[in-house]
């Protein structure tokens, strides 16, 4: 979907056009479902959170100022819904971990088919500070944009680039040391 399409669709959604909202759903549902599923690890729960995300998005779509902000905004709603889900469950997961970095319930990387090199790299990712880990996971394992990551982590895009830069340099150091 082009930016122009997205702009038109956003405007139509803001005018109360549910058909346009259905197109918006088609555009983002799959990516958001993956994002939610990796964090709750349960199909039905992820489906419910996805539905709730879009219902809330519909109610508050007037708040979105630009089409560029839309995707990140949807992720932010998903993130808040996931946090609510864990709040209700009051699991043993420390809530601050969930709130800050949304720990994965399921690893988005297929760890079964890793080469030795890749397994080592993944091990090094786990050694990074939590914030850097989160950015690497979102950017590389889930293909999120800087804008989307910024919205999820409540930071600016510039801050995400800085964190990403530090994380990649640190991983480079760790892999060089090992080899």
């Amino acid at each position, binding site marked *: 979907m082009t930016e122009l399409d997205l702009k038109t669709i956003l405007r139509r959604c803001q005018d109360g056009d*549910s058909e346009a*909202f259905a197109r918006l759903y088609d555009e983002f549902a*799959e990516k958001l479902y993956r994002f939610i599923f*990796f964090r709750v690890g349960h199909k039905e729960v992820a*489906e419910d959170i996805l539905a709730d995300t879009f219902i809330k998005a519909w109610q508050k779509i007037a708040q979105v100022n630009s089409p560029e902000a839309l995707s990140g905004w949807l992720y932010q709603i998903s993130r808040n819904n996931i946090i609510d889900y864990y709040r209700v469950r009051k699991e043993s997961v420390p809530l601050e971990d969930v709130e800050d970095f949304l720990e994965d319930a399921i690893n988005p990387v*297929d760890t079964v088919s890793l080469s030795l090199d890749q397994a080592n790299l993944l091990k090094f990712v786990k050694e990074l500070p939590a914030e850097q880990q989160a950015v*690497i996971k979102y950017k590389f*394992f889930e293909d999120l944009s800087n804008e989307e990551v910024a919205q999820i982590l409540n930071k600016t895009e510039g801050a995400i680039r800085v964190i*990403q830069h530090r994380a990649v*340099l640190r991983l480079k150091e760790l892999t060089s040391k090992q080899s």
Partner: protein
Amino acid sequence: MPNDPHQFIEEMIQSAKKRQDVSVWLRHPETADLAKTVLKLTSLPRRNVELPNLAKIQERILAKIESQQESKESAWSHIPSFLKIGSAIFGSFMIVVSLTMGVAVAALQSVPGQAIYPLKKIVENIELRLTPESKVPALQIQLADKRISEIKTVLEQQKSGEISEEQAQKIVSATVKDLQRTTSAVAKSAGKQAKPTIVNKLTDMSNELKITSVNTEGSVKIEIEKAIQSTEDSTAEAIKNVQEAGIEIEPQPVLPDAVTASGKITSSTFDTISIGTAKFLINQDTKFVNLTAKDLKVGLVVDINGVIKDNKTYAVKISVILSTPEPEEPTEDKPTSTETPTVSGTETNVETDSTESPQ
């Protein structure tokens, strides 16, 4: 390393993700290790996620937001109760006036697409508001049945060339949305009033829609399939609600390809039998209970168990209910079974061959 190292790494990541050539960075001693790290990160195998039925979730979302919109738009939710009563009285008065003028009568008989149809919806909404809460589910079921009947009428109009496929799709789409809202409301009432019979009614509607969908195609078929799906969802919700209300209910399996219909035969040939718009093909596997193939006559009241195969509906079992064809007695306020065949799904489905009389 360039002046803006953050931007530089970002560009490298984007190139690696897009599988573009990064050999320049790999060759350069200052950037080689960095490029290797980025390449390794982008090449990590991803876990395959089995996606759910996203279309079904979409329907759920759209149904919800449309019901929210409706309640938002409804002035009833904002006005004080004395005004509601006043409006209801005024509405009733208007109905009486309209009835005397014949307008409301015409409206109640209108079908979607006609200019007078919106008045029918207004009359129905007023009727819903004036109905005691205990009788609302029954009225909602009646309204849902009306919507199905209207869909059939629109399909007939399309078939006869009165309206184009595009027009039919638009009208059916709007009617299906209305039907979805009604069946969803019915499902909720099933729990509130603990009425397991609602489950059977919803199952019947699914079956009727399945029969209707057989002879459709293209965008119209998609719309009807949406209605089938949402009616099945409402059935599941109704079962859950009834069970939560403490009533044991045997979930009636909705077989994806099984349909049944009951009513007067409206046409019959050596290899087809129709009840209204529900047309079944007869083949060598069709079983006849209490009658033979030769006995099939227009006006005979029968139960037909059918199966949908290759987009055609085959009659598996035909059982006679009334052995003598009844004279046609159409009345204005009570539709004949020809007009609205009762499609009863599961009760007849559970019959076994042992219950059949010898032919």
